[in-house]
Protein backbone atom coordinates (compact mmCIF):
# COMPACT_ATOMS: atom_id res chain seq x y z
CA UNK A 1 0.00 0.00 0.00
CA UNK A 2 1.20 3.48 -0.81
CA UNK A 3 2.48 5.01 2.38
CA UNK A 4 0.78 8.34 2.05
CA UNK A 5 -2.56 6.65 1.68
CA UNK A 6 -1.90 4.19 4.49
CA UNK A 7 -2.20 7.16 6.79
CA UNK A 8 -5.45 8.38 5.40
CA UNK A 9 -8.43 8.45 7.65
CA UNK A 10 -10.49 5.29 7.00
CA UNK A 11 -13.53 7.52 6.81
CA UNK A 12 -12.24 8.90 3.47
CA UNK A 13 -11.98 5.37 2.15
CA UNK A 14 -15.50 4.71 3.20
CA UNK A 15 -16.87 7.76 1.40
CA UNK A 16 -14.91 6.92 -1.74
CA UNK A 17 -16.01 3.29 -1.64
CA UNK A 18 -19.61 4.26 -1.08
CA UNK A 19 -19.56 6.76 -3.92
CA UNK A 20 -17.91 4.45 -6.45
CA UNK A 21 -19.82 1.41 -5.21
CA UNK A 22 -22.99 2.98 -6.56
CA UNK A 23 -21.64 2.43 -10.06
CA UNK A 24 -19.90 -0.93 -9.74
CA UNK A 25 -18.68 -3.24 -6.99
CA UNK A 26 -15.20 -2.15 -5.98
CA UNK A 27 -12.71 -3.93 -3.73
CA UNK A 28 -10.54 -2.27 -1.13
CA UNK A 29 -7.44 -3.06 -3.21
CA UNK A 30 -8.94 -1.51 -6.32
CA UNK A 31 -9.91 1.54 -4.34
CA UNK A 32 -6.39 1.93 -2.96
CA UNK A 33 -5.09 1.72 -6.55
CA UNK A 34 -7.50 4.38 -7.69
CA UNK A 35 -6.78 6.68 -4.77
CA UNK A 36 -3.13 6.82 -5.84
CA UNK A 37 -4.27 9.16 -8.59
CA UNK A 38 -6.01 11.50 -6.16
CA UNK A 39 -4.85 14.34 -3.95
CA UNK A 40 -6.10 15.28 -0.52
CA UNK A 41 -6.88 18.99 -0.38
CA UNK A 42 -7.69 20.89 2.80
CA UNK A 43 -9.37 24.29 3.01
CA UNK A 44 -10.44 26.64 5.77
CA UNK A 45 -14.00 27.83 5.86
CA UNK A 46 -15.06 30.61 3.49
CA UNK A 47 -12.32 29.89 0.98
CA UNK A 48 -12.99 30.21 -2.74
CA UNK A 49 -11.86 26.97 -4.38
CA UNK A 50 -12.81 27.87 -7.94
CA UNK A 51 -13.16 31.44 -9.17
CA UNK A 52 -15.38 32.66 -11.96
CA UNK A 53 -13.37 32.55 -15.19
CA UNK A 54 -10.86 30.02 -13.88
CA UNK A 55 -10.62 26.55 -15.45
CA UNK A 56 -11.63 23.96 -12.88
CA UNK A 57 -9.20 21.09 -13.13
CA UNK A 58 -10.61 18.98 -10.29
CA UNK A 59 -13.27 16.42 -9.62
CA UNK A 60 -13.81 16.55 -5.86
CA UNK A 61 -15.35 14.18 -3.36
CA UNK A 62 -16.18 15.95 -0.10
CA UNK A 63 -14.98 13.83 2.83
CA UNK A 64 -15.35 16.55 5.44
CA UNK A 65 -17.07 19.90 5.42
CA UNK A 66 -19.35 21.69 3.02
CA UNK A 67 -18.88 23.32 -0.37
CA UNK A 68 -21.31 25.75 -1.94
CA UNK A 69 -21.48 26.12 -5.70
CA UNK A 70 -23.10 29.28 -7.00
CA UNK A 71 -23.65 31.22 -10.17
CA UNK A 72 -23.24 35.01 -10.24
CA UNK A 73 -26.17 36.67 -11.99
CA UNK A 74 -27.11 40.27 -12.75
CA UNK A 75 -28.80 40.71 -9.40
CA UNK A 76 -26.64 38.77 -6.97
CA UNK A 77 -26.13 35.04 -7.19
CA UNK A 78 -27.93 31.71 -7.30
CA UNK A 79 -26.84 28.76 -5.17
CA UNK A 80 -26.69 25.62 -7.32
CA UNK A 81 -25.36 23.00 -4.95
CA UNK A 82 -24.58 22.48 -1.28
CA UNK A 83 -22.23 19.51 -1.17
CA UNK A 84 -21.62 17.72 2.12
CA UNK A 85 -19.68 14.58 3.01
CA UNK A 86 -19.97 11.83 0.41
CA UNK A 87 -21.01 14.15 -2.42
CA UNK A 88 -19.10 15.14 -5.51
CA UNK A 89 -18.73 18.81 -6.38
CA UNK A 90 -16.99 20.64 -9.22
CA UNK A 91 -17.61 23.17 -11.96
CA UNK A 92 -18.76 20.44 -14.32
CA UNK A 93 -18.87 22.30 -17.62
CA UNK A 94 -15.46 23.85 -16.98
CA UNK A 95 -13.93 20.50 -16.01
CA UNK A 96 -15.40 18.57 -18.91
CA UNK A 97 -14.76 21.15 -21.62
CA UNK A 98 -11.69 22.91 -20.15
CA UNK A 99 -13.34 26.31 -20.45
CA UNK A 100 -13.48 29.16 -17.91
CA UNK A 101 -15.90 28.44 -15.10
CA UNK A 102 -19.22 30.28 -14.94
CA UNK A 103 -19.72 29.15 -11.37
CA UNK A 104 -17.87 29.72 -8.10
CA UNK A 105 -17.04 27.06 -5.52
CA UNK A 106 -16.63 28.19 -1.93
CA UNK A 107 -16.27 26.30 1.35
CA UNK A 108 -18.76 27.13 4.09
CA UNK A 109 -16.98 24.99 6.69
CA UNK A 110 -13.39 23.75 7.05
CA UNK A 111 -13.32 21.20 4.24
CA UNK A 112 -11.31 18.20 3.08
CA UNK A 113 -11.60 17.00 -0.50
CA UNK A 114 -10.33 13.91 -2.29
CA UNK A 115 -9.56 15.44 -5.69
CA UNK A 116 -8.72 14.10 -9.10
CA UNK A 117 -7.37 16.26 -11.93
CA UNK A 118 -8.68 15.83 -15.47
CA UNK A 119 -5.39 14.36 -16.69
CA UNK A 120 -5.13 11.96 -13.77
CA UNK A 121 -8.71 10.90 -14.34
CA UNK A 122 -8.00 10.03 -17.97
CA UNK A 123 -4.84 8.20 -16.89
CA UNK A 124 -6.65 6.25 -14.19
CA UNK A 125 -9.53 5.32 -16.50
CA UNK A 126 -7.04 4.12 -19.09
CA UNK A 127 -4.83 2.09 -16.74
CA UNK A 128 -7.34 0.68 -14.33
CA UNK A 129 -8.84 -2.58 -15.75
CA UNK A 130 -12.48 -1.58 -15.32
CA UNK A 131 -11.65 2.12 -15.49
CA UNK A 132 -13.38 3.06 -18.71
CA UNK A 133 -16.52 1.26 -17.62
CA UNK A 134 -16.42 3.07 -14.30
CA UNK A 135 -15.89 6.38 -16.09
CA UNK A 136 -18.87 5.82 -18.33
CA UNK A 137 -21.08 4.80 -15.43
CA UNK A 138 -20.05 7.84 -13.37
CA UNK A 139 -20.91 10.17 -16.24
CA UNK A 140 -24.20 8.36 -16.75
CA UNK A 141 -24.90 8.79 -13.03
CA UNK A 142 -24.16 12.52 -13.24
CA UNK A 143 -26.40 12.85 -16.27
CA UNK A 144 -29.26 10.92 -14.66
CA UNK A 145 -29.04 13.18 -11.63
CA UNK A 146 -29.16 16.36 -13.73
CA UNK A 147 -32.16 15.06 -15.61
CA UNK A 148 -33.84 14.16 -12.35
CA UNK A 149 -33.26 17.64 -10.94
CA UNK A 150 -34.68 19.27 -14.03
CA UNK A 151 -37.70 16.96 -14.05
CA UNK A 152 -38.43 17.74 -10.40
CA UNK A 153 -37.91 21.46 -10.87
CA UNK A 154 -40.44 21.50 -13.71
CA UNK A 155 -42.92 19.08 -12.13
CA UNK A 156 -43.11 20.07 -8.50
CA UNK A 157 -44.39 23.10 -6.67
CA UNK A 158 -42.17 25.26 -4.45
CA UNK A 159 -43.84 23.79 -1.41
CA UNK A 160 -43.33 20.19 -2.51
CA UNK A 161 -39.65 20.83 -3.24
CA UNK A 162 -39.17 22.52 0.12
CA UNK A 163 -40.80 19.72 2.10
CA UNK A 164 -38.92 16.99 0.24
CA UNK A 165 -35.62 18.75 0.75
CA UNK A 166 -36.21 19.21 4.48
CA UNK A 167 -37.25 15.57 4.90
CA UNK A 168 -34.10 14.36 3.16
CA UNK A 169 -31.66 16.93 4.55
CA UNK A 170 -32.90 17.82 8.05
CA UNK A 171 -29.41 18.78 9.28
CA UNK A 172 -28.81 21.38 6.57
CA UNK A 173 -30.75 24.12 8.36
CA UNK A 174 -28.10 23.99 11.07
CA UNK A 175 -25.19 23.98 8.68
CA UNK A 176 -26.16 26.45 6.00
CA UNK A 177 -27.36 30.07 6.20
CA UNK A 178 -31.04 30.18 5.33
CA UNK A 179 -30.54 32.58 2.40
CA UNK A 180 -28.40 29.97 0.62
CA UNK A 181 -30.97 27.25 1.15
CA UNK A 182 -33.70 29.54 -0.14
CA UNK A 183 -31.61 30.40 -3.18
CA UNK A 184 -30.82 26.73 -3.81
CA UNK A 185 -34.50 25.81 -3.67
CA UNK A 186 -35.36 28.90 -5.73
CA UNK A 187 -37.69 30.15 -3.03
CA UNK A 188 -38.01 33.78 -1.93
CA UNK A 189 -36.56 34.31 1.58
CA UNK A 190 -39.99 35.33 2.95
CA UNK A 191 -41.62 32.22 1.51
CA UNK A 192 -38.80 30.13 2.91
CA UNK A 193 -39.43 31.43 6.45
CA UNK A 194 -43.14 30.78 6.12
CA UNK A 195 -42.59 27.22 4.82
CA UNK A 196 -40.07 26.59 7.56
CA UNK A 197 -42.59 27.51 10.22
CA UNK A 198 -45.15 25.28 8.53
CA UNK A 199 -42.68 22.43 8.41
CA UNK A 200 -41.82 22.78 12.13
CA UNK A 201 -45.53 22.71 12.98
CA UNK A 202 -46.12 19.61 10.90
CA UNK A 203 -43.24 17.84 12.60
CA UNK A 204 -44.80 18.25 16.04
Amino acid at each position, binding site marked *: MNKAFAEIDPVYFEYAQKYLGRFMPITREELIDLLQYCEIRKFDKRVIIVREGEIDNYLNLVVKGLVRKY*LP*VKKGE*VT*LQLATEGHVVQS*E*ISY*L*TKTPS*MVILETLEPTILVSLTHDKMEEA*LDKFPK*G*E*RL*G*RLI*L*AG*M*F*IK*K*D*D*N*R*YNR*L*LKSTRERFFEYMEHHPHMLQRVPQKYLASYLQIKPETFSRLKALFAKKKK
Partner: protein
Amino acid sequence: MLEPVRQFINQHIELTNEEFQTLASKFHPVSFAKKTKVVNIGEVATNIYFVLKGITRRYFYRGRQEVITHLVRENGIMGSVISFLTGEPSRYILETIEPVSALAISKKDLEELFLSDKKWEKFGRKIITSFFLQIEYHNMDVIRYSTKERFVNFMKQNPDLVLRVPQKYLASYLEIQPETFSRLKHLMVKEK
Protein backbone atom coordinates in the same frame (compact mmCIF):
# COMPACT_ATOMS: atom_id res chain seq x y z
CA MET B 1 -26.84 7.09 -45.10
CA LEU B 2 -23.94 6.53 -42.70
CA GLU B 3 -22.00 9.69 -43.44
CA PRO B 4 -23.89 11.95 -41.00
CA VAL B 5 -23.49 9.46 -38.16
CA ARG B 6 -19.80 9.16 -38.91
CA GLN B 7 -19.44 12.93 -38.71
CA PHE B 8 -21.38 13.01 -35.47
CA ILE B 9 -19.12 10.39 -33.90
CA ASN B 10 -15.97 12.14 -35.08
CA GLN B 11 -16.92 15.11 -32.92
CA HIS B 12 -16.61 12.87 -29.87
CA ILE B 13 -14.03 10.19 -30.57
CA GLU B 14 -11.78 8.95 -33.38
CA LEU B 15 -12.72 5.57 -34.78
CA THR B 16 -10.86 3.54 -37.41
CA ASN B 17 -12.83 2.47 -40.48
CA GLU B 18 -13.02 -1.01 -39.08
CA GLU B 19 -14.32 0.20 -35.73
CA PHE B 20 -16.90 2.32 -37.44
CA GLN B 21 -18.04 -0.67 -39.50
CA THR B 22 -18.44 -2.70 -36.30
CA LEU B 23 -20.64 0.01 -34.88
CA ALA B 24 -22.56 0.51 -38.11
CA SER B 25 -23.37 -3.19 -38.32
CA LYS B 26 -25.47 -2.74 -35.16
CA PHE B 27 -27.70 -0.04 -36.67
CA HIS B 28 -31.21 -0.78 -37.86
CA PRO B 29 -32.88 1.74 -40.16
CA VAL B 30 -36.33 2.68 -38.89
CA SER B 31 -39.01 5.17 -39.80
CA PHE B 32 -41.96 6.63 -37.94
CA ALA B 33 -44.99 8.56 -39.20
CA LYS B 34 -45.54 11.99 -37.73
CA LYS B 35 -47.07 12.16 -34.24
CA THR B 36 -45.95 8.62 -33.43
CA LYS B 37 -45.21 7.88 -29.80
CA VAL B 38 -41.89 6.09 -30.11
CA VAL B 39 -41.66 5.60 -26.35
CA ASN B 40 -44.57 6.06 -23.96
CA ILE B 41 -44.61 6.78 -20.23
CA GLY B 42 -44.12 3.56 -18.29
CA GLU B 43 -42.36 1.73 -21.12
CA VAL B 44 -38.73 0.72 -20.89
CA ALA B 45 -36.72 2.25 -23.74
CA THR B 46 -34.69 -0.50 -25.41
CA ASN B 47 -33.39 1.57 -28.35
CA ILE B 48 -31.84 4.93 -28.97
CA TYR B 49 -31.82 6.57 -32.37
CA PHE B 50 -29.63 8.74 -34.53
CA VAL B 51 -31.99 11.00 -36.48
CA LEU B 52 -31.39 11.17 -40.24
CA LYS B 53 -34.51 13.11 -41.10
CA GLY B 54 -37.34 14.66 -39.14
CA ILE B 55 -37.89 16.07 -35.71
CA THR B 56 -39.10 14.78 -32.35
CA ARG B 57 -39.98 16.09 -28.95
CA ARG B 58 -39.73 14.55 -25.51
CA TYR B 59 -42.16 15.59 -22.80
CA PHE B 60 -43.94 14.65 -19.61
CA TYR B 61 -47.20 15.75 -18.03
CA ARG B 62 -47.54 18.25 -15.23
CA GLY B 63 -51.20 17.68 -14.46
CA ARG B 64 -52.74 17.92 -17.92
CA GLN B 65 -50.06 20.20 -19.27
CA GLU B 66 -47.33 18.88 -21.53
CA VAL B 67 -43.85 19.94 -20.44
CA ILE B 68 -41.31 19.66 -23.27
CA THR B 69 -37.75 19.02 -22.22
CA HIS B 70 -36.12 18.09 -25.54
CA LEU B 71 -36.39 18.80 -29.23
CA VAL B 72 -34.19 16.69 -31.49
CA ARG B 73 -33.71 17.07 -35.21
CA GLU B 74 -31.31 15.77 -37.89
CA ASN B 75 -27.92 14.59 -36.63
CA GLY B 76 -29.10 14.42 -33.04
CA ILE B 77 -29.79 11.47 -30.79
CA MET B 78 -33.36 10.85 -29.77
CA GLY B 79 -34.55 8.48 -27.10
CA SER B 80 -35.89 8.26 -23.63
CA VAL B 81 -32.25 8.20 -22.66
CA ILE B 82 -32.62 7.86 -18.89
CA SER B 83 -34.88 4.84 -19.25
CA PHE B 84 -32.47 3.42 -21.83
CA LEU B 85 -29.55 3.83 -19.43
CA THR B 86 -31.25 2.67 -16.24
CA GLY B 87 -33.66 0.07 -17.59
CA GLU B 88 -36.41 1.74 -15.60
CA PRO B 89 -39.83 2.74 -17.00
CA SER B 90 -39.75 6.00 -18.94
CA ARG B 91 -41.08 9.16 -17.29
CA TYR B 92 -41.20 10.81 -20.69
CA ILE B 93 -43.03 10.41 -23.96
CA LEU B 94 -40.87 10.48 -27.07
CA GLU B 95 -43.05 11.56 -29.97
CA THR B 96 -42.33 12.55 -33.55
CA ILE B 97 -43.41 15.99 -34.77
CA GLU B 98 -42.55 15.31 -38.43
CA PRO B 99 -42.08 11.90 -40.07
CA VAL B 100 -38.74 10.57 -38.85
CA SER B 101 -36.19 8.26 -40.40
CA ALA B 102 -33.44 7.15 -38.06
CA LEU B 103 -30.84 4.57 -37.25
CA ALA B 104 -31.66 2.54 -34.15
CA ILE B 105 -29.24 0.76 -31.87
CA SER B 106 -30.47 -1.57 -29.16
CA LYS B 107 -29.35 -1.59 -25.55
CA LYS B 108 -28.33 -5.24 -25.91
CA ASP B 109 -26.08 -4.54 -28.90
CA LEU B 110 -24.56 -1.49 -27.25
CA GLU B 111 -23.84 -3.42 -24.04
CA GLU B 112 -22.14 -6.14 -26.09
CA LEU B 113 -20.02 -3.51 -27.74
CA PHE B 114 -19.08 -2.01 -24.35
CA LEU B 115 -17.99 -5.40 -23.07
CA SER B 116 -15.98 -6.22 -26.20
CA ASP B 117 -13.42 -3.42 -25.82
CA LYS B 118 -12.87 -0.56 -23.41
CA LYS B 119 -12.59 1.80 -26.34
CA TRP B 120 -16.37 1.52 -26.66
CA GLU B 121 -16.82 2.37 -23.02
CA LYS B 122 -14.90 5.57 -23.68
CA PHE B 123 -17.07 6.22 -26.73
CA GLY B 124 -20.13 5.76 -24.49
CA ARG B 125 -18.70 8.15 -21.93
CA LYS B 126 -18.06 10.84 -24.55
CA ILE B 127 -21.61 10.63 -25.88
CA ILE B 128 -23.09 10.71 -22.38
CA THR B 129 -20.84 13.68 -21.58
CA SER B 130 -22.41 15.53 -24.51
CA PHE B 131 -25.90 14.77 -23.11
CA PHE B 132 -24.77 15.96 -19.70
CA LEU B 133 -23.38 19.21 -21.10
CA GLN B 134 -26.52 19.89 -23.08
CA ILE B 135 -28.74 19.72 -20.02
CA GLU B 136 -26.28 21.66 -17.86
CA TYR B 137 -25.98 24.49 -20.41
CA HIS B 138 -29.76 24.63 -20.55
CA ASN B 139 -29.97 24.79 -16.73
CA MET B 140 -27.42 27.60 -16.65
CA ASP B 141 -29.20 29.55 -19.39
CA VAL B 142 -32.50 29.41 -17.53
CA ILE B 143 -30.82 31.00 -14.51
CA ARG B 144 -28.43 33.37 -16.23
CA TYR B 145 -30.61 34.89 -18.91
CA SER B 146 -33.87 36.74 -18.91
CA THR B 147 -36.83 35.33 -20.81
CA LYS B 148 -36.19 37.79 -23.62
CA GLU B 149 -32.50 36.92 -23.85
CA ARG B 150 -33.27 33.19 -23.96
CA PHE B 151 -35.86 33.77 -26.65
CA VAL B 152 -33.52 35.87 -28.80
CA ASN B 153 -30.57 33.49 -28.40
CA PHE B 154 -32.70 30.51 -29.28
CA MET B 155 -34.16 32.18 -32.38
CA LYS B 156 -30.72 33.18 -33.61
CA GLN B 157 -29.27 29.72 -33.08
CA ASN B 158 -32.27 27.73 -34.32
CA PRO B 159 -34.03 29.68 -37.06
CA ASP B 160 -35.08 26.39 -38.70
CA LEU B 161 -36.92 25.15 -35.61
CA VAL B 162 -39.17 28.19 -35.59
CA LEU B 163 -40.50 27.09 -38.96
CA ARG B 164 -40.78 23.40 -38.13
CA VAL B 165 -42.01 23.26 -34.55
CA PRO B 166 -45.38 24.53 -33.26
CA GLN B 167 -44.93 27.66 -31.21
CA LYS B 168 -46.46 26.17 -28.06
CA TYR B 169 -43.80 23.45 -28.07
CA LEU B 170 -40.99 25.97 -28.43
CA ALA B 171 -42.42 28.06 -25.60
CA SER B 172 -42.63 25.02 -23.34
CA TYR B 173 -39.10 23.95 -24.20
CA LEU B 174 -37.78 27.43 -23.43
CA GLU B 175 -39.78 27.58 -20.20
CA ILE B 176 -41.58 30.68 -21.44
CA GLN B 177 -45.33 31.34 -21.15
CA PRO B 178 -47.05 30.96 -24.55
CA GLU B 179 -48.40 34.55 -24.40
CA THR B 180 -44.95 35.90 -23.61
CA PHE B 181 -43.55 33.87 -26.49
CA SER B 182 -46.05 35.43 -28.94
CA ARG B 183 -45.31 38.91 -27.67
CA LEU B 184 -41.55 38.42 -28.01
CA LYS B 185 -41.99 37.03 -31.50
CA HIS B 186 -43.96 40.08 -32.63
CA LEU B 187 -41.37 42.33 -31.05
CA MET B 188 -38.57 40.54 -32.86
CA VAL B 189 -40.32 40.81 -36.24
CA LYS B 190 -40.84 44.53 -35.65
CA GLU B 191 -37.22 45.12 -34.67
CA LYS B 192 -36.09 43.53 -37.89
